[in-house]
């Protein structure tokens, strides 16, 4: 009988897994409501590196923007009384001013005289030059360096740095505020043995010092009291890494954390009703799409891809899966990106049209294909099940194969996955950046092998076109072609949802989804 009891216990544990972590209900003094200058935040994952040039996920990026400053940054504006980033306006940060040459191929940045790294060394032109060298040599941010068109970075004097471009490039000033382009105290890095040290340590001039970073449990930040800029209001920020979404929701409800990210749509309603919780849900530029590999039959035929686009139950995805925390996506570029165009977008949930297109493509009986489902996001799973059921109605069999996220990302890079769902956020809110990575023949993230001469040509012309209106017209041409050829079925644009306790002020919504803790304050 011992065996029976053990097996039963195991089955019961399987049945209630997920409950255990919520078992403690004691409220200690670390909650946002108890201490006015301390915030505890709940994130889903712990980040991979603290190196600004290698960071590539929201958690890592969050620590980088806390510990480092950049030369310039995005302006802030108000949207319905709530602060929001204005990404097309660039304002001073470590550089107090800058001048462009007449032909827009050279910029000279004048550094603030009072800016200091966290251990007291001044932020000098040398540091800027060495930081850019580090970015250029990095494996992650080096492509941004190329995309910004940077040819040479030189020190003019202690306070002035000159950056030469290969050609006029409208993305240059857009890319500089990114966390990747943080200014690092490279002398300190050299003293500690080189760039590898940066993966787990920081050498920035930013408003917070990272005092603890354990990616499997939690991280802590302390205010940099000698910060050159506005002093952050929060003295201490602790970030807990809690993978299970329901646990984050529960901790927020019980005020054990003051802010939570990645709140599932189904929990947004219940949180709205909860006492003392504020939901900040705003349109962002994070998109979700169903990509079909254009080099693998039958998706090499645009009519088949269009048929799939007509079979997607768009309303159900928005209402049943996302519970309204997303909006329709009608172009490969997010609707909040300047230059967005939905020309050529005609897709609705219309199975008759889908069947007709399949018949035209010579597949009246439908077909069968493999769909790879990356783990980690419940909405992807739900979308896949709903799409699978709709495709079944037009005779198309979608074989779902689940894959753990690291393997999924590796598989995508082989460009041999037949169909998949993935999300994308363009941190540079510009169609040139976005399309260049995702949908041009040379695009490094063009995992669905879309290759179209019209798109390539329009993108090429636009990349050196200085006039905004003409440039956006070219991007419009590219988007129309993409909408018609349908390399992806567009699923939706996510809202950026941040749930926090009432009394937390200053949260500013950025398209990159990164919370800038130095802007926050807590009032009781």
């Amino acid at each position, binding site marked *: *009988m011992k*065996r*029976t009891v053990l*097996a*039963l216990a*195991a*089955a*019961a544990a*399987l*049945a*209630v*897994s*997920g*409950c255990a972590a*919520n078992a403690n209900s004691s409220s200690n003094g670390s909650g946002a409501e108890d201490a006015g200058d301390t915030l505890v935040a709940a994130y889903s994952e712990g980040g991979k590196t603290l190196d600004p040039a290698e960071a590539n996920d929201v958690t890592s990026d969050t620590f980088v923007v806390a510990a480092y400053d950049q030369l310039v940054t995005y302006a802030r504006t108000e949207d319905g009384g709530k602060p929001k980033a204005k990404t097309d306006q660039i304002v001073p940060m470590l550089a107090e001013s800058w001048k462009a040459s007449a032909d827009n191929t050279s910029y000279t940045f004048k550094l603030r005289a009072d800016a200091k790294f966290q251990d007291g060394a001044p932020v000098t032109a040398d540091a800027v030059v060495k930081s850019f060298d580090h970015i250029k040599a990095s494996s992650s941010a080096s492509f941004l360096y190329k995309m910004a068109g940077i040819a040479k970075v030189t020190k003019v004097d202690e306070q002035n740095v000159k950056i030469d471009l290969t050609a006029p490039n409208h993305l240059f000033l857009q890319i500089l505020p990114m966390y990747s382009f943080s200014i690092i105290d490279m002398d300190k890095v050299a003293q500690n043995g080189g760039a590898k040290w940066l993966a787990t340590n920081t050498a920035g001039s930013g408003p917070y010092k990272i005092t603890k970073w354990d990616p499997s449990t939690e991280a802590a930040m302390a205010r940099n009291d000698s910060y050159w800029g506005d002093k952050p209001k929060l003295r201490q920020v602790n970030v807990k890494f809690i993978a299970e*979404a*329901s*646990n984050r*929701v*529960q901790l927020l409800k019980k005020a054990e954390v003051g802010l939570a990210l990645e709140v*599932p749509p*189904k*929990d947004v309603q*219940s949180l709205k009703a909860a006492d003392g919780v504020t939901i900040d849900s705003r349109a962002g530029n994070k998109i979700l799409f169903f990509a079909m590999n254009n080099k693998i039959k039958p998706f090499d035929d645009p009519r088949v891809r269009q048929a799939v686009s007509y079979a997607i139950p768009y309303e*159900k995805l928005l209402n*049943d899966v996302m519970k309204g925390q997303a909006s329709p996506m009608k172009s490969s570029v997010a609707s909040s990106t300047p230059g967005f165009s939905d020309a050529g977008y005609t897709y609705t949930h219309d199975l008759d049209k889908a069947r007709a297109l399949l018949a035209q493509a010579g597949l009246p009986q439908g077909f069968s294909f493999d769909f790879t*489902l990356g*783990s980690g996001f*419940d909405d992807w*799973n*739900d979308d*896949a*099940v*709903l799409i*699978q*059921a709709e495709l079944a109605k037009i005779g198309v069999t979608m*074989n*779902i*194969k*689940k*894959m*753990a996220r690291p393997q999924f990302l590796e598989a995508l890079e082989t460009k041999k996955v037949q169909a998949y769902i993935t999300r994308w956020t363009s941190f540079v809110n510009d169609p040139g950046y976005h399309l260049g990575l995702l949908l041009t023949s040379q695009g490094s993230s063009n995992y669905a092998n879309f290759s179209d001469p019209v798109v390539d040509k329009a993108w090429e012309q636009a990349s050196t076109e200085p006039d905004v209106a003409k440039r956006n017209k070219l991007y419009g041409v590219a988007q129309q072609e993409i909408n018609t050829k349908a390399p992806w079925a567009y699923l939706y644009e996510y809202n950026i949802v941040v749930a926090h306790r009432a009394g937390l002020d200053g949260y500013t919504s950025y398209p990159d989804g990164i919370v800038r803790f130095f802007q926050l304050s807590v009032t009781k």
Partner: protein
Amino acid sequence: MPDLKSRPTTTLSLLLRNRLAVVGLVFIALWTLGALLSGLSPYGATQPGAGALLQGPSWAHPFGTDNFGRDLLTRVLAGGRISLWTGLIAIAISLLIGVPLGAFAGFVRGRAGGLVMRLMDMLLAFPSLVLAMAIAAALGPGMVSAMVAVGIVGIPEFARIVHGQVLSLRERDFVEAGHAIGLPGRSILIRHIVPNALAPILVRATLGMGYAILTAASLSFIGLGAQPPDPEWGVLISDGRGYIISGEWWMTTFPGLAIATSILGFNLLGDGLRDVLDPRLRTSK
């Protein structure tokens, strides 16, 4: 030999006199029947939209509905078909490989036998779920790989039991007699030794069913087993776990109960069988 002929009826009647074993049989029969009849449900097991989303248990949907409006009772019953099949096939794999290996090792002994048993020890040294995960991951996600993985993990148990049985049986008089009249070794092993080792194998196979179902459900729970939209029990629990906190308890409770009761069923039956089949236990009653 009248004794042998009457034995099956004796075994069955003895088993039916064991109340716990009968309870186990009833659980197994219920889930088997449910699996067979799941196709008769007015709702599809995989098509979304049979009812409203996330409804609690009601007369129309006794187990409630899931986040796609699918009827959970239909899915749990249909899931039984997958889970029971998985258990059966996994045990069959373990049996078909484990029994010959154990019998061989026990009969020939020496270096070859030792090698086989050390290989089995190596397999046993791994935590079984971890080994199953590794095998399933290597084969690629899917129910077939889950069956194979669970089957392979079960091999050493059977090999060890049969090995032990053969080691003791080969010293018995009837085996000596076989050798004495010049029967070939293979024939002694297959026709005289293995049949006499069947009782513990049968007990182990019954107990192993429960374990196989649980392991397969665990694999599905972490995404290595059944793929959407198949309603395997582990998948149902995995799908429902995000809804425990928000109050939709039925999405995990019913599949959880299904796993628990079916494992309980096989374990009770296995315990009962052991009591009945083990002569020492029987005489001590």
